[in-house]
Every structure is written in C-alpha cells, then in structure tokens.
C-alpha cells in the first residue's frame, strides 16, 4: 500500500475522508494519549480526554493552516482540551489518602519492560500530585511552556505558576523518596 504524505492526509481529512483521519490518528495517537494521560493522572479520564481531543481536532481541521506540523497542532489541541476539562471539573485529590499503591499505574501493559519499575514510580508520583501542580510541572518541565503561557492556559498569575512549580517539584521529590523507602521495606520484608 502506498504511504501518503501527511499533507495529503490532512487535505483528505479536510474533505471529510474517514480513512485519512484514521491514518492521521494512527500516526499521532500515542503522542496525544501520552500528553493527556500525564495531565489527567488516570487512565479513564485520559481515554475520555484523548477522544475529545481527536474529535475537536477533526471538527476544526479546516482551520489547520499548515504553519506547524500536524502532530504539533493536534498535540496543542490535546493540551488545551485536557486543561479545559481539568479546569471545568476542578478535580482535587487527597494526596495522603491515595498514595497507598492502589492508584493507577498508567496501564503497565503499555509500559516498556526496560526500566519499567523506575518509570512506574515516577508516573505514580506524578499521578499523586494535586492536579494544578501536575499540570504546571508537566507543562513547564516536559512540554517547555513558559510561565506566561502556563498562566494564560490555566488562568493563573505568572507568580502563581512559579510558586506552583516549586511546590510541585518539592512534592514530587518527597513522593519519590517515600516510594523508594517503601520499596526498600517491601524488599526487606520479602527476603
């Protein structure tokens, strides 16, 4: 089968061609799912957000002007969709109560085997952060957003974004240390 260029797929998707949309989805589904999963903190919400993001993207694909790559464009839509939903829901989690190992691991079936334990630990700590902390931390440290951009996205002041970032980093460190300590205890008990 001939592999079509992304520009051709986008043009066809603009004409409403479902197969072109499916191929665009296949190319970028991991990237979109990953970012909404990181921001959401759990699998079910992430699945909903990814669906919303793709539906939004295809509904407004005629507005895509090709200034950036399609992947960048849809990634941005995914971030916006996730942040909008998270703001609307204003979900808050109880850190101390939920950090007991029963929380989601981000579906370990979809994690690579190599270094999986360490990564699961990082993901789990990230999931346990309060929603606002997690969003600021991920957007700044991984996505590369500035505090001005984060402030605009989340509707908070630049100073608040900076403050949340420092708290988020400290909390992550704390959670990671707790997690490592717990692991040492577990291993000790099983020996």
């Amino acid at each position: 089968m001939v592999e079509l260029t992304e520009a051709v797929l986008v043009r066809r998707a603009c004409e409403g061609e479902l197969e072109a949309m499916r191929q665009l989805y296949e190319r970028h589904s991991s990237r979109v799912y990953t970012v909404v999963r990181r921001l959401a903190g759990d699998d079910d919400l992430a699945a909903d957000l990814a669906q919303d993001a793709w539906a939004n993207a295809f509904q407004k694909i005629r507005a895509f002007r090709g200034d950036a790559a399609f992947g960048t464009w849809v990634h941005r839509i995914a971030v916006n969709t996730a942040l909008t939903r998270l703001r609307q829901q204003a979900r808050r989690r109880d850190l101390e109560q939920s950090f007991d190992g029963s929380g989601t691991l981000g579906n370990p079936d979809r994690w690579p085997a190599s270094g999986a334990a360490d990564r699961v630990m990082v993901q789990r700590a990230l999931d346990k952060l309060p929603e606002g902390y997690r969003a600021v931390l991920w957007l700044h440290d991984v996505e590369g957003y500035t505090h001005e951009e984060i402030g605009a996205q989340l509707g908070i002041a630049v100073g608040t974004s900076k403050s949340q970032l420092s708290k988020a980093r400290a909390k992550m460190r704390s959670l990671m240390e707790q997690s490592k300590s717990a692991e040492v205890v577990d291993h000790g008990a099983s020996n």
Partner: protein
Amino acid sequence: MVHLTEETFSELLDGGRVAGAEDHLADCPVCHGELEGLRRLRSELRELPELEAPPQQWEEIAARLPYGRRPWLRGQLRVAAQVAAMAAVFVIGLGLGSMFRSSEPAGEASLPQVVADQPPASSLPDAMADVQRLSAQYNAALANLERLAQQDGTPVPSLAEHRLASLNALVEASRTALSAEPADPVLNAYLFAALEQREEVLRQMGAQPGTRRPGVMWR
C-alpha cells in the same frame, strides 16, 4: 544551618542565580544532594516513555465524527458529478450553437431540454443516472448539429473541436479524481474511455483536409 527553600531550588534548577546560594551549596551536602535529586527527577520525567492509546479508541472517535464517508465512493461520486456537470454544459453549448447556425424553425431542431439548475446528485447511482441522461442528450444534440451542418454545408471540424474540448475536460476531471484515488477501477475506466475517445477524435481531425489539429489543449 538554614537550608535553601524550595523556591530557591526551583530558581536554581531553571538556571537562575540566587545571591548566596552557590556558596551555601558548596558547604551543604544536604542541599547539594537535593538540587541534584531535583535535576535527576526532571530528567526522569522527560524520559517517561510514550504510551499507546487504548485499543478501540479509533472506533469510538470515528463514531463521534459526523461526516466520514468511504473514500472510493467519494471519488466516484465526485467524478460522476463532474462528468454530469460537464455534459450539461456541453449539451447547452451544442444546443445554443445549433440554434445560432440553424436556418430551420426552432421546432424542427428538436433540441433536448436541459435544466441547468438541477440540484446535484446526492448518491453515486443518482450521479450515474445524470451522466447517462446527459450523455443521451449530448448524443442527440450532436446528431442534430451534424445534420444541420450537412444541410447548410458548413464544415464539421468545428464540431470535432467542440467534442475534443469536452473530452479534454473529461480527461482532466478523471485525472483529478484519480490523483486522490489512484487505484479506483471505476475512475480508471472513466479515464481510459475518455482517452480512447479523444484519440479517436484527434485521428478524425487529422484525417480531414484543412483541419488544424490542435496541440495539447489541457495538459
């Protein structure tokens, strides 16, 4: 010893400078270790792997999209609509041409009636029916024009040129549709039929004395 605050660590992590912080870090292994731990954690965050989207997610997304259609049907519908529109224009053109040229009463010309503002076909069978209907009208108009041309002694080559222009347009429409669906058998059949017909017209024009064989008209 008073340790650095989380705000100071964060500032240092982002490459900022905080008065006295470097001196403190040089003397304080606890804060130095904390800063290194934060750096390591940021790296670990950035190295988290991409996750696969849940299976069946595409089906759920597709179910929410209101306008997806099967691509081959779209291609056929598009070319059928183009052919129908072109045939309509050509029939109108022939009809008008024959009216201007005819010395006979209009009633005897028995030109086909073409409804120019007919709504576009909404399905492939409808579009194909339009094509067949317009093709019949086109043939009737062509025969009528040939008869009129023979009656008043006007050379037929202009008629062939009309026909060639129409076939060129049909080739163009077929190629446009095929650029989107190269393997579609129906679209390929349109193109081959149009090319064959065009070749035949070009042969006829070349065989007629005094007829200027046109160069490439469309591509």
